[in-house]
């Protein structure tokens, strides 16, 4: 693809995201004017009630949605490249479920932990899952076998999801957990963003810096070595980034699947397979998808919120099926 058309696509994605974020600030259970949105975002002080709602509730919600979308999509792109597996995604591989499990333990037994502490445990959970999956899938082969990896991931994911639900039942946490699972982006507050946003930002910057190297992730370890690059080091860096991004996302809004699987495919469909281009587009589209899904979740049946995951699936599944059919070699 030409450099120019990439720039156009990139700008298009930026405009799309800004448009969706503005729309998401304006519409919701409670409508407001774009003027109020502008004032709420830019003015130093505001006394208007609408503007205050936008500022204290919607702005963090929309920012949170955007950040989480980039985090999930970015982890998807990292995982898909370093595992050479187009189906890899922190949701499908059980990394999110691992984070969710430790988070459930925190909610059940240690309800007084701070946000930062519970998040740290979620990251530990994500790391635990990642370690388990890689241990299982490398047990026999020296190199990661793509289908073993996905099977191991699905098994781990089911295990941790079941454990979390069991624990919730026993600990009578149904209410708390349901709130946390179904509240979607509504759970994101300014204080959470202040605490956790920086971690997501660091993860995203690392993901962008790794992007050029992801192109060689598809070579054999030996070929990479003879070009002076180490794929084991690249894989380790990518995995640590994924663990942080997905652990923090899960701590903020619960386990969201599909974004990480879908968005990198969409980006490759638009700009080809060079990760220098795929990564920025993936991050922008990931944010757009979650912001859009969050907006729709609020608009379908106000003032009730439709569960976020349902919206993502409704938007995502048809897209994914379309893309999967377009690219036959993904079946390999």
């Amino acid at each position: 693809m030409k450099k120019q058309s990439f720039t156009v696509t990139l700008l298009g994605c930026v405009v799309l995201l800004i448009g969706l974020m503005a729309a998401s600030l304006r519409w919701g259970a409670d409508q407001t004017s774009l003027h109020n949105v502008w004032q709420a975002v830019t003015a130093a002080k505001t006394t208007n009630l609408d503007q205050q709602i936008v500022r204290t509730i919607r702005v963090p919600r929309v920012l949170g949605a955007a950040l989480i979308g980039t985090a999930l999509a970015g982890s998807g792109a990292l995982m898909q490249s370093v595992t050479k597996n187009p189906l890899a995604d922190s949701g499908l591989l059980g990394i999110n479920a691992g984070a969710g499990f430790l988070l459930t333990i925190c909610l059940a037994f240690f309800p007084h932990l701070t946000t930062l502490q519970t998040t740290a445990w979620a990251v530990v959970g994500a790391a635990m899952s990642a370690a388990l999956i890689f241990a299982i899938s490398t047990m026999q082969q020296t190199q990661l076998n793509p289908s073993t990896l996905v099977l191991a991931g699905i098994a781990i994911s089911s295990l941790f999801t079941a454990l979390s639900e069991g624990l919730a039942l026993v600990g009578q946490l149904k209410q708390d957990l349901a709130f946390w699972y179904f509240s979607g982006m509504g759970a994101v507050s300014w204080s959470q963003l202040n605490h956790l946003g920086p971690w997501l930002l660091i993860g995203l910057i690392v993901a962008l810096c790794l992007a050029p190297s992801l192109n060689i992730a598809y070579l054999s370890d030996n070929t990479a070595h003879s070009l002076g690059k180490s794929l084991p080091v690249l894989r380790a860096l990518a995995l640590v980034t994924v663990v942080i991004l997905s652990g923090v996302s899960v701590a903020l809004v619960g386990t969201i699947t599909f974004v990480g699987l879908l968005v990198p495919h969409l980006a490759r469909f638009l700009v080809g397979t060079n990760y220098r281009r795929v990564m920025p587009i993936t991050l922008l589209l990931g944010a757009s998808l979650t912001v859009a899904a969050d907006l729709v979740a609020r608009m379908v049946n106000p003032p009730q919120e439709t569960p976020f995951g349902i919206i993502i699936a409704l938007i995502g599944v048809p897209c994914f099926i379309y893309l999967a059919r377009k690219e036959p070699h993904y079946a390999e």
Partner: protein
Amino acid sequence: MAKLIDARHIQVGYAQHPIINDLSITISRGQITTLIGPNGSGKSTLIRAMAKLLKIDQGVLTFDDQNLTTLSHKMLAKKLAVLPQTTQAKPELTVAELVTFGRLPYRKPLSGLTALDREKIDWALTKAHLTTLKDRPLTNLSGGQRQRAWIAMAIAQDTDTIILDEPTTYLDLPHQLEVMQLIQELNQSADRTIIMALHDLNHAARFSDNLIAIKDGALAASGTVNDVMTAENLRRIFNIDATLIAYEGRPLILTYETATPAEDVQ
């Protein structure tokens, strides 16, 4: 002749399972040295050891007068390019993208291609006759075209030494010849040291300066082509009875039969 590689009593293998035992060889700078030997004799294993892709369990291997263990992969990548026997890449990768990987040892993190990078990439594409195919994805190429794309990547690396493990696999006769002539040209006009493994003994005899014959992980013979390509050596190494003639001062195998067991001859 100056020594480029000097291996002294090396042992190399996979996970405690030695394949090459107590092997000592030297490879001269500026020459074409070809490894020959039956399937599974250890040619690729030796190549991996020389390229620092496998650990040398015992003995010492010096490359360019430096102990290989003291050279980092990054430093080595500027001195030595390797075409492995089996290759692996993203199927959608284009020829030009693959060849661009050859410039990785020289590129700074997060920066674009320099003018020199572009020049070397174009040079490699031209040398490998791939200019018209450069935007094609690797999946859409024939086996031979794909092989040439990988060779072009090694050429773009612009190293003094190039190691090729069976570079003519998948190629038809004219393309085999083309690759061998390309390798010869790199050696003669660009003064590259070439180390390769070949199964075609006539090509090995025609294009090499020196031969190293490996059998069962041990050195079976080494020296100039005329020293190594003898009927006795071929019988000992490959278990064949070859009819050899001299053609333009080099041995040529006219035909060969499975060797009759030594007892029957007597």
